[in-house]
């Protein structure tokens, strides 16, 4: 037990040391007066602000707002992406109808939709949810479509030779053989969602982490801005770790062509 703990600690030594070094350098810049202390708070100030903000409660509310918007927007993008991918993978007419739209909208950065989104939906949850759906749609759609198109014939043939009917083919062959790639699409989609929600909240919301850092910029509370940024990073990291864990645990196999 103990040796395992030590080993896992050992693996992270370099990472931990590098973070400590970074914080020390940050402190050193201030101690030696190399950076104006009005623009950059000390690491300790930032830590104190974090504690205060957590006790205060509205900050937790902001975190919760952002996560809810990501969740709803991502859910919407995923459902639409999966459905259209499945339709297009199996129907030529559906592909011909949707492809021009998909390809024209794809290069437009979701942020360029902000003005329209605010005009249509007003300030609040809706524009952010809309933008997140839009941004997460593309990686989920593309990966799922490619996954279905590239299901190896050999598995379909084998299943048919073994007498599989359509239901068994779908549940036991098609879905497991596309899942690894679909999960990859969802992972990329979630990463994009988190970035979009923060950006959308900078201008189009009255709550959320993006709104929080923008508000504190206006209040010249750089310490709070940094707390907000660190929390954004930490949550994004946590979401990615969670999906990677699920991926490794359940989709360890390679679907080779």
């Amino acid at each position, binding site marked *: 037990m103990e040796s395992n703990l030590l080993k896992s600690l050992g693996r992270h030594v370099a990472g931990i040391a590098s973070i400590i070094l970074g914080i020390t350098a940050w402190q050193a810049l201030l101690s030696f007066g190399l950076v104006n202390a009005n623009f950059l708070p000390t690491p300790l100030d930032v830590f104190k602000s974090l504690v205060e903000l957590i006790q205060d409660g509205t900050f937790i509310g902001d975190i919760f707002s952002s996560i809810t918007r990501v969740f709803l927007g991502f859910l919407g993008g995923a459902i639409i992406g999966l459905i259209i991918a499945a339709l297009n993978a199996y129907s030529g007419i559906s592909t011909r109808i949707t492809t021009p739209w998909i390809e024209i909208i794809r290069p437009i950065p979701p942020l360029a939709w902000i003005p329209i989104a605010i005009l249509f939906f007003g300030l609040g949850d809706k524009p952010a949810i809309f933008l997140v759906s839009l941004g997460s749609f593309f990686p989920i759609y593309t990966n799922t479509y490619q996954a279905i198109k590239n299901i190896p014939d050999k*598995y379909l043939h084998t299943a048919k030779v073994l*007498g599989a009917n359509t239901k*068994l083919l779908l549940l036991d*062959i098609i879905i497991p053989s596309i899942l690894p790639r679909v999960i990859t699409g969802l992972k990329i989609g979630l990463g994009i969602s988190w970035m979009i929600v923060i950006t959308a909240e900078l201008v189009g919301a009255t709550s959320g982490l993006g709104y929080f850092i923008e508000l504190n910029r206006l209040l010249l509370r750089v310490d709070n801005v940094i707390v907000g940024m660190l929390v954004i990073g930490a949550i994004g990291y946590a979401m990615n770790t969670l999906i990677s864990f699920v991926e490794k645990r359940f989709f360890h196999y390679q679907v080779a062509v």
Partner: protein
Amino acid sequence: MALKKLVISNVSKNFEAEGLEKEVLDGITLSVEEGESVCLIGPNACGKSTLLQIVAGLIEPTKGKILHNGELVDEPHCSRTIIFQDLNLFPWKTISENIEFGLRAKGVEEASRGITLEKYLNLLKIQEFANYYPNQLSGGTKQKSAIARALAMEPDILLMDEPFSSLDMQTREFLQEELQKIVREKNQTTLFVSHSIDEALILADRIVVLSNSPARIKSVVKVLRKHKENPDFRHSEDFLRYRKHISKLLKEE
């Protein structure tokens, strides 16, 4: 006259590649008796695998037809199970789940599925690997698993496409002997493709030598039971004689 188990009647196949028609099989006619084991042997890429897949019902012939127990073959059916060259074990299923898949497809009830599963895990001596995934296993074990999956279907005709090509010599010889025993005991009708003369001699009652593109039947060599019953057939004079004969036929190509 007794009904032939399998009749391949005047089968030809053309493939189109880059606008060119390529003739792969030309007028193959062949029949397989119940309990017989027939090997198709020929130069690389001569169309042996194509013929096997036509028999399985996965590819449609350009001309001619396949009759299985007198019925026309036009789609895959679990009574003609094929072991593919690269095995095609489902990587997301354990060995047990792979073997059970065909039984589930057949609608076999759970209780008797378990019995069949045990039987074939034992037969191929892979019980200890039942809960492993294919990518955790050696080539030989994967090979045995694919054979178990096919045999568990208790197919009327077992089709095999170079089943042992990816194995080292020792494993290959061992599995050839094992499979030969199983096939003999079950009186299993078998049609398989090989490019190894030794493998053909060990496993087959008849060896069909194919010519190069387009494949035609060049010669059929019957391996007599009285020779095969020699427990040391692999190292006998007869074996060498067969070997020389087939080798000569193949070299002419």
